[in-house]
């Protein structure tokens, strides 16, 4: 099947996803801005509570990941958080999360930023740290309370959520093993937020073909060519989900059956959780995958780049799944709010 495995002996020991309780329907946002309901990018999206931010959601997801890993937090050697909504411009999120989790102070911690792929970037770094033997376990987290300018197309999708993974050397009781990884980046002016600006700007249709699709497909195709995988080797394909349509278009371009994409889809019901987006798709798939199945997950972050990972699900997944609430359980908490309350939750009312 393949000649070269790029990552050997590194596995996910525990995983956790978190989405806030609150939701706003796209039709409610469309009602306020006088837009038709015909072409709304998602059905509804998550909204953080008044007391939630990137740090608190990262802690929630990481606690579930540690519960599934069943390890002493003192064994964790690195806490990496990817986000584009770190609460402080200068003061790391990672140190607060690490103390809340009860890790040792003698750890490596960094905040990553790469638009929506900051979470998978954090994961790449943890894999490297574990692989080099510098740490025994590390936590990679993607967490965001994404910003969307009122009335802008992004307001329908910019959502809140977090996903965390405890990564270490492989063993008898791990959730999934990494097999390979490939990244692809270019200088792409599709989406950005300048310093001191509250909201990002984007280049509308330009964010599709040369940005999302080019980088996503380039990372996947490079993985196929260099590592000798075939698309038929995979049971699940997880994509970054800026809306509910792009992943299916990418799948069609690659010739992937829809049935292998659907299990990892979340954006139609929770929106685009940015740094957590594709990682939450992985959490959802790990909640249902069987040992022996193979997963291909590909993130995308504007600016732009994609990280692609190949994972093989292991026997430990069955037992670990029960150690923390599943994503489906968290999604059941959905409580719908109107646009006025949404503005309050998102700190868009300034007096």
């Amino acid at each position, binding site marked *: 099947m393949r000649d070269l495995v790029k990552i050997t002996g590194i596995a996910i020991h525990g995983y956790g996803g978190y989405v806030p309780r609150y939701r706003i329907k796209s039709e409610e946002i469309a009602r306020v801005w006088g837009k038709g309901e015909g072409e709304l990018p998602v059905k509804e999206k998550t909204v953080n*509570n008044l*007391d*939630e931010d990137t740090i*608190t959601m990262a802690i929630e997801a990481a606690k579930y990941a540690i519960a599934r890993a069943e390890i002493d937090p003192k064994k964790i050697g690195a806490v990496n958080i990817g986000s584009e909504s770190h609460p402080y411009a200068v003061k790391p999120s990672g140190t607060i999360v690490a*103390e*809340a989790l009860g890790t040792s102070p003698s750890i490596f911690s960094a905040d990553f930023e790469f638009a929506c792929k900051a979470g998978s970037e954090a994961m790449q770094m943890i894999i490297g740290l574990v692989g080099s033997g510098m740490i025994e376990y590390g936590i990679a987290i993607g967490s965001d309370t994404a910003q969307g300018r009122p009335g802008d197309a992004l307001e329908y999708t910019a959502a809140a959520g977090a996903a965390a993974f405890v990564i270490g050397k492989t063993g008898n009781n791990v959730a999934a093993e990494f097999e390979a990884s490939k990244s692809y980046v270019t200088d792409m002016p599709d989406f950005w937020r300048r310093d001191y600006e509250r909201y990002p700007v984007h280049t509308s249709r330009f964010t599709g073909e040369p940005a999302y699709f080019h980088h996503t497909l380039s990372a996947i195709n490079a993985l196929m060519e260099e590592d000798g995988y075939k698309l038929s080797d995979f049971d699940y394909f997880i994509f970054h989900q800026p809306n509910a349509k792009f992943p299916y278009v990418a799948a069609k371009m690659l010739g992937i059956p829809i049935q292998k994409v659907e299990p990892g889809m979340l954006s139609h019901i929770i929106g685009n959780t940015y740094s957590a987006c594709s990682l939450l798709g992985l959490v959802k798939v790990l909640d249902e995958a069987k040992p022996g199945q193979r997963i291909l997950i590909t993130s995308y972050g504007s600016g732009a780049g994609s990280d692609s990972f190949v994972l093989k699900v292991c026997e430990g997944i069955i037992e670990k799944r029960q150690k923390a*609430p599943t994503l489906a*359980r968290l999604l059941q*908490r959905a409580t719908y709010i109107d646009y006025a309350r949404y503005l309050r939750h998102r700190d868009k009312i300034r007096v």
Partner: protein
Amino acid sequence: MVFRFRIPSHWRAKPFRYRLIVYRCEDCGMVHQYPAIICRKCRSTRLRHTQLPQTAKLLSFTVVRQAPVGFEELAPYIVGVVEFEDGTRLVTQLTDCEPEELKIGMEVEAVVRKITQDGPSGLIIYGFKFRPRIV
């Protein structure tokens, strides 16, 4: 800059606010939130730091509508008394719920949330709150 909150005090309170680490007197059982040398109740010097459980039982609650300074943005919010398995009781905010969803005796779990912030440029204070347990 003038800080509304005492930053050293928050810094010292982190173990309690983030992870419910307390100092329990081994003679009388009194629980101290902050590192203590002598028990405030019995003057014993035998204090041991321990972590309170992450789940508790809801004993009572009320809704705060006239919030004190620093908490105006959250009002109305719920404050309750929770009791741990060992009998230790704690006054805490309750989050991710409406008052009508709460029942006396229900199980609640600790989460870390934003407690308050010192304006747009000051420190964000994080700490425990409780919510109905997700199982």
